[in-house]
C-alpha cells in the first residue's frame, strides 16, 4: 500500500492539472457587477449628456445639454444633485451663432464651439465669456472644427472635418469622390497651445493625418462622427468602419500602435463601407448598413481602476441597440467581455469614481436614469 502512495499522489496531481488547464479565461478574480440600480437626474428637459469631470477635490460633474430647442445645459453632481442651469440664449443672440457644447473645462467653466465658424469660447456658469479665439481663417483651407473641445493649461484641442472650399455647386459623383478622398488624407485633429493669445497662431498644429486611408478605399464614402479618447499622454482614434483602435503618442502625434478589437459575440467588427455610386443611388444606405453592422461604438478610460471599456454595438433589433462591453487593462489585454441586456440599457455611458454609469432604456423625456456597474 505504501508503495502505491506516490503513484496515487501523482494521479491526483495530473487530474487537478487537467481540470484547471481547460480554463482559458484570463487570470482575473475581478467581476462585472451592478453596484447601484438607479441614479436619477431630474434634468427638466430632453437632451444628451456630457461626461463627468473631476477636479482636484475629486468632485465629479455631468452636464445635460439641449442647445437645439431649450438653448441651455444643466449641471449635476454624479450623485444626481442638480447644481445649476446655464442658458446660452443671450450669448447666441449676442454672438449671432449657434453653438456646440465643447465640454467641461473646470467645475464652473465650459468650452463652446460656434457652429460652422470655428470660434472657440470659454464661458463661466453665468454664460459670460472668459476668453474666445477666432479660428475662422482655417475655413479657407477647408478645416471646420467639431466637438469635443478640450482645454487644459492654456491649450485647446478640437476635432476637424474637411469641408472642400472648392466644392462645385452641381457636383458629380467624380467630384464628390475627389473631395472625400482629399478629406481622408487630411488631419483629423487641431491643437493650439496658445489659446489665450487671440492673435498668435504660430503654434497651431493640425495632426493625425491620413487616418481614413488606412481602411477606406478611393471609391468609398463614409459618414460618421468623431470617435476619439483623449488622455494625458495618449490620444486614441477609432471609427465605425474599422475593427482597430489607433493609438497616437501626444508628444508628437505619431501613431504608436494599432489594437485589433475582437468580440465573443460577433465574427466581424466594422460597418460595411459604401461606394459613392451606392450612396447616390440610395442616400439611406449608410443608416441601413450601420443598423445591420457590429462596430466599435465608444471607448472609455477608467482612471480609478486603470482599465479601458470598449463598447461594441451589434446589429439593431428593431429599436433596441444590443451591445457588449470589453474590459481591457492598460496594455489592452482583454480581461473580460460582458453582453449587456439591450432591453434595460443603452450604450451611452460615462465613467465616475463609483464605476461605469450606463443609461437605462426606460428614461422619461425630462429625466435620465443610469445604473452603476464596476469591474472589481
Amino acid at each position, binding site marked *: 500500500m505504501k508503495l502505491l502512495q506516490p503513484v496515487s499522489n501523482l494521479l491526483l496531481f495530473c487530474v487537478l492539472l487537467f481540470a484547471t488547464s481547460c480554463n482559458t479565461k484570463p487570470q482575473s478574480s475581478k467581476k462585472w457587477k451592478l453596484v447601484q440600480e438607479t441614479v436619477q437626474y431630474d434634468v427638466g428637459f*430632453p*437632451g444628451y449628456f456630457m461626461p463627468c469631470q473631476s477636479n482636484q477635490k475629486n468632485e465629479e460633474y455631468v452636464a445635460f445639454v439641449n442647445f437645439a*430647442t*431649450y438653448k441651455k445645459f444643466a449641471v449635476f453632481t454624479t450623485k444626481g444633485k442638480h447644481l445649476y442651469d446655464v442658458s446660452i440664449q443671450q450669448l447666441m443672440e449676442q454672438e449671432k451663432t449657434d453653438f456646440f457644447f465643447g465640454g467641461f473645462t473646470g467645475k464652473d467653466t465650459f468650452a463652446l464651439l460656434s457652429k460652422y465658424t470655428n470660434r472657440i469660447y470659454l464661458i463661466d456658469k453665468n454664460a459670460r465669456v472668459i476668453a474666445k479665439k477666432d479660428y475662422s481663417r482655417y475655413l479657407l483651407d477647408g478645416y471646420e472644427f467639431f466637438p469635443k473641445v478640450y482645454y487644459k493649461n492654456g491649450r485647446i484641442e478640437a476635432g476637424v472635418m474637411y469641408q472642400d472650399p472648392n466644392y462645385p455647386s452641381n457636383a458629380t459623383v467624380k467630384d464628390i469622390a475627389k473631395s472625400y478622398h482629399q478629406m481622408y488624407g487630411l488631419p483629423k485633429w487641431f491643437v493650439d497651445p496658445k489659446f489665450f493669445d487671440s492673435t498668435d497662431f504660430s503654434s497651431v498644429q493640425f495632426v493625425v493625418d491620413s487616418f481614413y486611408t488606412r481602411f477606406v478605399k478611393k471609391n468609398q464614402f463614409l*459618414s460618421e462622427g468623431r470617435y476619439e479618447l483623449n488622455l494625458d499622454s495618449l490620444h486614441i482614434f477609432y471609427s465605425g468602419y474599422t475593427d482597430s483602435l489607433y493609438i497616437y503618442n501626444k508628444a508628437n502625434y505619431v501613431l504608436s500602435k494599432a489594437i485589433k478589437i475582437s468580440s465573443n459575440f460577433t465574427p466581424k467588427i466594422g460597418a460595411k463601407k459604401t461606394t459613392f455610386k451606392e450612396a447616390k443611388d440610395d*442616400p439611406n444606405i449608410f*443608416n441601413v448598413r450601420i443598423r445591420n453592422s457590429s462596430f466599435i461604438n465608444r471607448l472609455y478610460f477608467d482612471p480609478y481602476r486603470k482599465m479601458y471599456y470598449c463598447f461594441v454595438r451589434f446589429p439593431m433589433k428593431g429599436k433596441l441597440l444590443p451591445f457588449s462591453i470589453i474590459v481591457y487593462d492598460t496594455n489592452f489585454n482583454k480581461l473580460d467581455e460582458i453582453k449587456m441586456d439591450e432591453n434595460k440599457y443603452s450604450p451611452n455611458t460615462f465613467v465616475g469614481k463609483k464605476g461605469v454609469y450606463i443609461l437605462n432604456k426606460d428614461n422619461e423625456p425630462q429625466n435620465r436614469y443610469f445604473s452603476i456597474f464596476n469591474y472589481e
Partner: protein
Amino acid sequence: MSKQIFFFTLTILLFTSCKQAPKTSYEKLEQFCIDHSTLKNLKDYNSVVVINDKTQCLNCTNMFAKAMAKRLDKNEKIVFIISDNGAMVDISDYIDKKRKNIVFDYQNDFDKLGIANGSAFIDLKDRKITSITVINAQNVGDFK
C-alpha cells in the same frame, strides 16, 4: 353543454372579427393622430408635416422645421407631427403652442407606421395620401 360553448365561441368570433385594424396608410396616419392628440380625424386637413431627427441631413430638418413653423402661424390646414424630443432639432417654435393640430410624439412612434423614413411633407386628399416627400438636401429649399 359543448353545443353552448360552440355557439358562445362563434358569437365572440363574429363580434371580434368586425373590429378591423386600420389598413391603408391614410387610416394608419389618422389613427396615429387620434391616439396621440385630441384630433378626431384628418378630414379638415390637406397636409401633414412630420419632423424628426432620423435623417442624413440634420441641418435640412432644422431648416424644414423653421420654415414649417411659419406655416403653423398662418393657420394653414396642416397637421404637425413632432416626432422628436428637441435635443437635436429646434422645435422651440412648436413646444409652447397649444394647438390641436400639433401632435407631440417624443418617442417617435410615428416611425413604426412605416409611412416615411425621416422628416416629411405628406399631401392628403379624399381620405388618401396622395404624395409623400421625404426631406433631404436636394428638396429642403422647396419648402418655404
